[in-house]
């Protein structure tokens, strides 16, 4: 049977091209793989190979013709004994058209997911994290993280820890102290200094069903490994149509420590929070550090767990429960108040709470919300508080452009605009690489005084 040869698409963007030259004449024998024509695309001149065998029955588009649309019949291939004229008479079966990619918004789309449709903010979950009257114990964030890992490693044999100096050195920041003795080198794996390598190995092990905890000595070094975090860990479930889960935790200190300069002092919260497929956790208190890390290790998805070196040594009350976890997407109201809402997370909470104390002394009652997880984000708790206080200040250590506070401002503007009595203010780190000099570093970071000033501005005090 005769076959039409169609103008081929020869690049992802080609819609038309020039039929530069025919290399086969009418009557020539054509075999699969023979070059039959040269076609110019916008990028290059390409050789066009025959797929089917036959005889060049008729050339329908002359060489030199410009602007030939993709899928236009350009020639007819016939079998021996067939005439191209016969073929012209009987219509060659029509090709199945390519699916249109230029569809507009479709009414089958999920409600609330289009750019313009109003998203319904979920009701906040205000249940307590642990029952009233629970016995508490005082511990540092460092101890809480260590206890969380130890408990989960005991609970699940597929959980293991890998990273630089996590084993014999007992952890660069002593988070993993004692774990090698307890669990042995099979489950506490010292790696060479190879961030992209071990981030990839950890991700591969997770794709195979283990539950790795990958410790980065700091998240600054994770930039060497960010391809695996984003492209390999976060996207594979989607790209595999749901087949390949990646239960992995990437954890380590994030943000500024003290006097370590620009390359060791960046807050990556907003970077990772931008990526669908990741969950992003950033605890402030020791209780949250423990409950959220246990939850992260059990989560079937890749979790970025952002710690803070300055907080490691701080002590908090932690519920003394055999299996304490904190769910993701549930903010904590750290302090109640009716005059202004301060939203923060991680070490930003230290500044927010200090500012709230100072403000209270001046008669301004701030409600301080600790987000705890940035993805999922507890929009409900923010909106509910803003509806009560009508004023919002966000506090974070990261850079001001593309900050978490920017996103929250936009969300509040879209969803609670009528409740706002003042523009939202985002308190962030300064828009500079972190300086080394003590006085400059202090000015580059967010301070409680700046938070106080912002609150006074939105409360017109």
């Amino acid at each position: 049977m005769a076959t039409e040869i169609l103008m081929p698409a020869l690049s992802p963007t080609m819609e038309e091209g020039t039929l530069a030259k025919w290399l086969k004449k009418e009557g020539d024998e054509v075999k699969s793989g023979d070059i039959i024509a040269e076609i110019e695309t916008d990028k290059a001149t390409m050789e066009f190979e025959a797929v089917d065998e036959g005889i060049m029955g008729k050339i329908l588009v002359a060489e030199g013709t410009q602007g030939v649309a993709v899928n236009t019949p350009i020639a007819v291939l016939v079998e021996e004994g067939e005439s191209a004229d016969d073929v012209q008479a009987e219509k060659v079966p029509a090709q199945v058209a390519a699916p249109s990619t230029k569809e507009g918004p479709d009414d089958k789309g999920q409600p609330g997911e289009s750019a313009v449709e109003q998203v319904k903010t979920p009701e906040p979950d205000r249940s307590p994290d642990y029952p009233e009257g629970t016995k508490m114990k005082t511990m540092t964030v460092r101890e809480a993280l260590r206890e969380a890992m130890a408990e989960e490693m005991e609970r699940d044999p597929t959980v293991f820890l890998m990273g630089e100096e996590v084993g014999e050195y007992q952890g660069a920041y002593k988070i993993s102290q004692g774990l090698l003795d307890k669990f042995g080198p099979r489950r506490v794996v010292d790696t060479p200094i190879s961030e992209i390598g071990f981030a990839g190995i950890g991700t591969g092990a997770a794709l195979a069903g283990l539950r790795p905890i990958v410790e980065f000595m700091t998240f600054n070094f994770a930039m060497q490994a960010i391809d695996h975090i984003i492209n390999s860990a976060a996207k594979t479930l989607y790209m595999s149509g749901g087949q390949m889960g990646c239960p992995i935790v990437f954890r380590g200190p994030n943000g500024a420590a003290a006097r370590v300069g620009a390359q060791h002092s960046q807050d990556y919260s907003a970077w990772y929070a931008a990526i669908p497929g990741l969950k992003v956790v950033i605890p402030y208190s020791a209780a949250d550090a423990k409950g959220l890390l246990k939850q992260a290790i059990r989560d079937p998805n890749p979790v970025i767990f952002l710690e803070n070196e300055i907080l490691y040594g701080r002590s908090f009350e932690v519920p003394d429960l055999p299996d304490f976890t904190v769910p993701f997407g549930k903010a904590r109201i750290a302090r109640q108040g009716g005059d202004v809402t301060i939203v923060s997370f991680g070490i930003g909470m230290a500044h927010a709470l200090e500012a709230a104390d100072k403000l209270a002394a001046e008669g301004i009652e701030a409600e301080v919300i600790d987000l705890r997880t940035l993805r999922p984000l507890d929009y409900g708790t923010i909106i509910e508080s803003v509806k009560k206080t009508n004023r919002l200040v966000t506090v974070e250590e990261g850079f001001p452009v593309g900050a978490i506070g920017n996103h929250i401002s936009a969300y509040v503007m879209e969803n609670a605009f009528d409740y706002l009595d003042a523009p939202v203010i985002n308190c962030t780190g300064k828009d500079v690489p972190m300086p080394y000099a003590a006085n400059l570093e202090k000015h580059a970071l967010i301070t409680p005084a700046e938070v106080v000033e912002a609150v006074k501005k939105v409360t017109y005090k």
Partner: protein
Amino acid sequence: MARKPNPQRETPSNVSKEELLQYYRDMLLIRRFEEKAGQLYGMGLIGGFCHLYIGQEAVVVGLEACAKDGDKRITSYRDHGHMLACGMEARGVMAELTGREGGYSKGKGGSMHMFSREKHFYGGHGIVAAQVPLGAGLAFADKYLGNDNVTFTYFGDGAANQGQVYETYNMAELWDLPIVFVIENNQYAMGTSVKRSTKSTSLFGRGEAFGIPGEQVDGMDVLAVKAAGEKAVAHCRAGKGPYILEVMTYRYRGHSMSDPAKYRTREEVQKMRDERDPIENIRDLLVTGSHATEDELKAIDREIKEIVNDSAEFAKESPEPALDELWTDIYAAELPQGSAEENA
């Protein structure tokens, strides 16, 4: 086209007729599938990038002949051949190429991103060399769980110049991971020949620095690939750590469909096709060794053509994914089946 028969070639005594026919069949399926994919691309039914495996068929077919159930495989974006060779359905692969619901990733992955947990095929990766540490992670999991599975990690001569390959070599040998690193050296990293990208052109030899044994293999000869693969796999299964195979091969088509291929001559490609074609090679063995008649081979050709045509029809008729699919598979509610948790 008439080929010069190679008088020195004889059927090795340890290879059965059935095996030869199987290799012929498997390689031909890949060849015909890829030709069809090229055709559907030209018709606009396949979009984006599409990297064809034509010419390299003996590599994956020879190595799959060494695999046992439970072994894993992972590769780059030139992945259609690997999927067909490990037993994934032509229909599901082709329908993924056309971005349809019936594709292995429900149309959400495309040519470069397909997976099968059932067949232990871990992708399909679009970032050059990213699959190398991922493959070592798969092998890490098997070692952790204490089984004797091996992971085949395929990458190209281009990927061999990425730093993460060497971080992985170092850790794979340090931890004795059961992984076969398969360098598919098709001599061109997109448009840059090996000679133009490195002075250390013995790519397998780079493993020596880490203590990893390796060898170069004729990748146009499926039997040579299989023989080398068996040696490599035995090394890994015995707990001796990784092994490197640099398989010398050649892609007949461009890097992707939009490659004008001006970096090499038409004659160079034609010479490879005429003299070294892996499928013609095995066909010769079958015919000269009287293992199969021309009629028998033609019957196989017809059968393959039917499978491929059927896959193309399926890929055209399968509907586009429902719009709801945009919002699914971003987060898992629980761990997909077949996870290590069940085996630990």
